[in-house]
């Protein structure tokens, strides 16, 4: 007998607004014919949907904050608590900034996406699409679906709901990664790798979920917790199930050894997509990990922490060491993001309650700097001898002397790099401090020692790029080989992220207080 579920539309309003926006975007694709108009309409629609959703999130926050933690959106499947709302707002902000980057074009009128995703690289169809000025504007609805999926992902309190949300946000990302305008083959290869490993991780996750269901006869976090608490001796199925579920999520976080997709996908994707992926996916993955660990699995601390400790140390070490030898700036940031995944894991190695506010704050600072840095990467472009502006100049050597060409842009990049490195007066420092505090709170100081060493080593490759930008002259023969583009949309993104990085570094008290309020789960701890 089928009973219709009772959906609490009010609680779900943010997600509904975003997903409806995505659906409307699909209709726009069908009805608006001129590519240029379509792009504008799509951008406006996406921004309206995202900001509308953000508005509803803020209203809900204001309603829940004083007295209660939140509401159960769909009994057993989704909750809207303060923790979820904090992540929602973060993902929405990242989404809005990314939408602006999606819409930006170069001075020559070239967008980041291929005009015809289905055409083979170098084929006559592709040439024809270029000639006719076609545009892939589907990326905006895809972005909205991905955002909607991520919001559901961080709210999910059920293994199946989590899985559905995982696929809802992953599929649009697989597609978007394949749409780079330049280096089409690289882009398609990266997308394929991302898809295959993503599918693999989904399978691992599902296997784990099945084991947990087998052991507890339920897929809801709360029910799993009840069984775990009731049968401390019989964990034969629960432990492998929990490990496999965590592995599935660690794939999305990009932790070693499940990180292998990320450098390829980061490098292959159109840079605005990389920006979104790096910031928002990592946030969503960290949020889901936090929730499942703190709601369903925390009694298993002793059984699971060895895994988190090992992976955290490996992740920090591999990310840092491999980043040191990268010569491509996108790959360098990709490995640095792997190292950052390690820092995130440090925060909840001891399953301390502090992590519930430290991790959101850390990802906020990381995501903002990441979007800013990738936005800048879209602006530094190769220039051919005949003056035409080409693809992005991602070889490190090409960034030499950028500080002289464009001090403000290079200065903003320097700020983001300092924030990644965790230098005081930038947001990244406060984030690191919070994370370390959370770890030390539960006896994780050996991890913190490793993390401090890793940060010290990581400072070298960030500083190397700064030195390259400010203190190295442009090689004689390369004087005209790089051109700095500066689209107004990108400019907005760079300034907003730079200002936020500085503000969160210098005067973070307000944001920290909000993060402190967000450290509440409706279920669990």
């Amino acid at each position, binding site marked *: 007998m089928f009973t219709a579920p009772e959906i609490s539309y009010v609680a779900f309003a943010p997600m509904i607004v975003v997903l409806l926006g995505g659906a409307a975007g699909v209709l726009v694709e069908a009805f608006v014919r001129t590519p240029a108009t379509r792009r504008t309409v799509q951008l406006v629609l996406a921004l309206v949907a995202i900001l509308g959703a953000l508005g509803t999130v803020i209203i809900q926050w204001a309603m829940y904050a004083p007295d209660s933690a939140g509401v159960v959106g769909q009994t057993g499947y989704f909750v809207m608590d303060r923790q979820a709302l904090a992540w929602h707002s973060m993902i929405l902000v990242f989404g809005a900034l990314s939408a602006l980057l999606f819409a930006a074009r170069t001075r020559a009128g070239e967008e980041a996406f291929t005009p015809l995703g289905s055409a083979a690289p170098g084929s006559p169809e592709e040439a024809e699409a270029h000639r006719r000025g076609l545009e892939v504007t589907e990326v905006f609805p895809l972005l909205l679906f991905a955002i909607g999926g991520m919001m559901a992902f961080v709210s999910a309190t059920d293994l199946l709901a989590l899985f559905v949300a995982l696929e809802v946000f992953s599929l649009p990302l697989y597609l978007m990664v394949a749409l780079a305008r330049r280096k089409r083959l690289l882009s398609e290869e990266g997308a394929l790798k991302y898809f295959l490993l993503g599918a693999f991780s989904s399978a691992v996750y599902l296997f784990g979920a099945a084991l947990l269901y087998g052991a507890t006869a339920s897929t809801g976090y709360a029910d799993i917790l009840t069984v775990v608490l009731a049968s401390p001796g019989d964990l034969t199925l629960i432990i492998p199930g929990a490990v496999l579920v965590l592995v599935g999520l660690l794939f999305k976080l990009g932790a070693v050894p499940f990180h292998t997709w990320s450098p390829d996908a980061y490098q292959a994707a159109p840079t605005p997509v990389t920006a979104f992926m790096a910031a928002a996916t990592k946030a969503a993955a960290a949020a889901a990990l936090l929730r499942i660990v703190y709601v369903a699995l925390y009694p298993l601390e002793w059984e699971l922490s060895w895994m988190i400790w090992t992976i955290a140390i490996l992740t920090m070490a591999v990310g840092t060491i491999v980043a040191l030898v990268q010569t491509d700036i996108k790959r360098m940031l990709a490995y640095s993001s792997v190292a950052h995944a390690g820092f995130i894991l440090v925060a909840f190695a001891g399953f301390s309650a502090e992590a519930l506010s430290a991790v959101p704050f850390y990802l906020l600072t990381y995501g903002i700097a990441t979007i800013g840095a990738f936005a800048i990467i879209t602006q530094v472009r190769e220039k051919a001898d005949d003056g035409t502006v080409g693809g992005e100049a991602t070889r490190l050597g090409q960034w030499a002397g950028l500080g002289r060409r464009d001090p403000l842009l290079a200065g903003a990049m320097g700020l983001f790099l300092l924030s990644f490195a965790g230098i005081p007066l930038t947001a990244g420092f406060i984030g690191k401090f919070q994370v370390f505090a959370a770890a030390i709170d539960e006896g994780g100081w050996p991890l913190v020692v490793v993390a*401090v060493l890793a940060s010290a080593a990581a400072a070298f490759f960030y500083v190397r790029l700064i030195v390259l930008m400010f203190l*190295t002259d442009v090689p004689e023969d390369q004087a005209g080989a790089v051109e700095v583009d500066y689209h107004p949309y990108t400019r907005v993104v760079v300034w907003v992220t730079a200002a936020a990085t500085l503000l969160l570094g210098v*005067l*973070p008290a307000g944001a920290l207080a909000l993060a402190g309020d967000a450290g509440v789960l409706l279920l669990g701890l």
Partner: protein
Amino acid sequence: MFPFLTVLVLLPLVGAVVVRALPEGARGRVREIALGFTAVEALLGLVMLTQFDLADAGTQQFTETYAWIPQIGTSWALGVNGFGLSLIVLSLILTPLVILAEWRKDKDPARAARYLALILVLQAFMVGIFAARDVFLFYVMFEAMLIPLYFLIGGFGGEQRRYAAVKFLLYSLVGGLIMLVGVVALYFVGPGGEQAYLIDNLTGYDFGTTAERLMFLAFFLAFAIKAPMVPVHTWLPTVAETARPGTTALLVAVLDKIGTFGMITLGLALFPEASKWAAPVIIVLAVISVIYGAIAAIGQTDMLRLVSFTSVSHFGIMVLGIYAFQQTSVEGAALYMFNHGLSTGALFLVVGFLIERKGTPYVGEYGGLQKAVPVFAGTFLIIGLSALALPGLSPFVSEIMVLVGAFGVAKIAVIVSALGVVLAALYVLLTYQKVFTGPPNAKLGKTRELGLRERLVLWPLIALMLVLGFFPSLAIDYLREPTAAVLTTVNAEVSE
């Protein structure tokens, strides 16, 4: 109460923004504007000096405390006792003089604006660091200061400037990161809470012996690199020979004092037991610095390198004074920090003027200048004599205080260090002899006499050294109680 210290920190920052943002048309006046800002700053400092209650020099005055990031226990807490005040005054005196000294270096106004803006930013951090009453704030300023310095070294100066800037940055960053571990540890080992980093709250706190010693080492290493002590001093000569003399003057005269300032205000106050514990080793290193710096200075042919090695030697004396833990010696070290700022600052600037005239820093390429430019020669000689601590000039008093004060507890160290003082006569007088006496070097051609602007830079410093040389109590009154207070902490620890 007027927030003197916050204004003193913010005013130069405003100045830096103004200097950088000047419209194309007003760029020609960029030097005057920068000088104006430092003049107002110095004037404010003068007003503050008159408001300072000398009878109560040991306690923090002009205090301001605002919550900054309560979640990690740090606050915007500023305040000065006589000791901090003396170093702030030093930086307020030297910054305008450095701007004046570098007046004609940049033909391109945009380049001049860059240089001046960086100097102003540096001044803001100098004031901030000597006024910080919060360890975290101190650390932030300590690290932030690297940024303007890095660009000052790497962007302006000789051929090797990039190498020098990176070397400087690497040394300082390593020191800073190790100190950061200590700073973070203070939060977790210390009392914690919303004002976990206030120095007042941390003074006398029992961290446990092992934790205290480890944290002390973390802080001390950063300070030793900054100070600069042998064996972590090698960045200084590299920087000195390539950076502009004005930059180096500020660096050695004021910024390096952060190292010794930190040893007294943070090292002794927060970690008294560990300071006592480490003192024997530190004193040995200090004595090595004194002798090594002096011998190395004698061996230099590049005058800027020479002056930088004399500083290594002099900083050794200060460190010896601090870790002898005697009232007279610590007081002498604090006094020396001020006097050394005057004398070495002047020395770098006068050498800079000489190099500006002839384009070479090598002693061997000069000779017999005394006849051509007597005023220059006389000024150079007086400044040189101050560096070798001639009685009547202020560094003498401080050196004697350190040596006499420390004699009771570290006889051998003092005797060996006194040798360094003798060596000082050697390197100063030998240099003077080679550059200014004897037959004029035929290749030199005509030399310009000391101009009005240059006299305005150097003579006030000489005047100050003379005044303080004859009336040292003018300065000592500001330093006695602060150093006595710190020593009380240290000695209380030991008697327990």
